[in-house]
């Protein structure tokens, strides 16, 4: 088994940390962009880039309310994203067991 079997969308340091952090919340709960950025210590631009990639894969949804400085973005891990992380973790364990 090679690393190719790992989900390429999750298998990147920043995205792995984003998904793992959101998965620590109960199913359906959301986290604000600013809190997520604070926890992960990423720049806003970098975080947006990775969030977009995860959102395109259907692993999370983001919702923005308000405009300009008053805007507030929340991010929620989808059921699909949670399942993908579980599958990624399982594959990783199998890979490490075989190494």
């Amino acid at each position: 088994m090679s690393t190719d079997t790992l989900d390429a969308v999750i298998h990147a340091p920043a995205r792995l940390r984003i998904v793992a952090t959101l998965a620590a919340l109960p199913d359906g709960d959301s986290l604000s962009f600013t809190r997520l950025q604070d926890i992960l210590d990423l720049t806003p631009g970098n975080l947006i880039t990775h969030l977009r990639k995860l959102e395109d894969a259907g692993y999370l949804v983001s919702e923005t309310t308000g405009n300009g400085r008053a805007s507030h973005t929340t991010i929620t891990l989808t059921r699909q994203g949670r399942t993908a992380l579980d599958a990624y973790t399982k594959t990783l364990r199998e890979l490490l067991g075989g190494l």
Partner: protein
Amino acid sequence: MQGTHDIDQTTTANDGNGLDPREAARLLAETKRDAQRQFSLSPPWISAVMGAVILLGYAALWLSTRGQHPYSGPSAGAIVLVYVAVAVSIAVSVKVYQRATAGVSGPALRKQKVEGAAIALSYIGSPLIQGAMYHYHASHTIVYGVIPAAGPLIIVGTTVLGVAASNGNRPQFITALAVVTGGIVALFVGPSGAWLAAGITLFIAVVGYAAMTRGRFLHPQGGTDEHRHA
């Protein structure tokens, strides 16, 4: 931005190709542990603080009532000490809650708030019974000893027991069951002994709960079903 990680600034679909599986596993475990700490409403350190506060408060109540014949109740100094300890505990809990839930929203948090309100409401049960006992001229042994010592453990403990059972939160369930059992014991060991029994029970419960949930921080499991309830 100074001090922030700017890895993967130019991301591509294959930007994880250089990530070693061992490194990925380490990063995953570390992130889960950090996230659980961030969102936890009862981090181990707060349990240690609560344990110390409980020991101090209940020891003061027990020492001030030990050997009283007839029983008259805790001294004013002991009561003031307990009120200060409770105020400190509430302030610390509020701070921890605000930190853990900052930026978090959703159905689970709303449910947790309702459960928190129910638990907070159950705290008035014991003073109400105490007031009724006073109204019916029950002895000081009952009004200022057995009821205030054992009542909160049984009433609040039972409420938490129900919440823990509905959430399938095993550490919380075991802890609440121990508290209720300790409360029942406290009912039958005399007024001064009730304070001692209540203090020992709460201390063991708090420390035991910290020990049960500590393992989650040190050895996060691979699954993603860890909740803030821990």
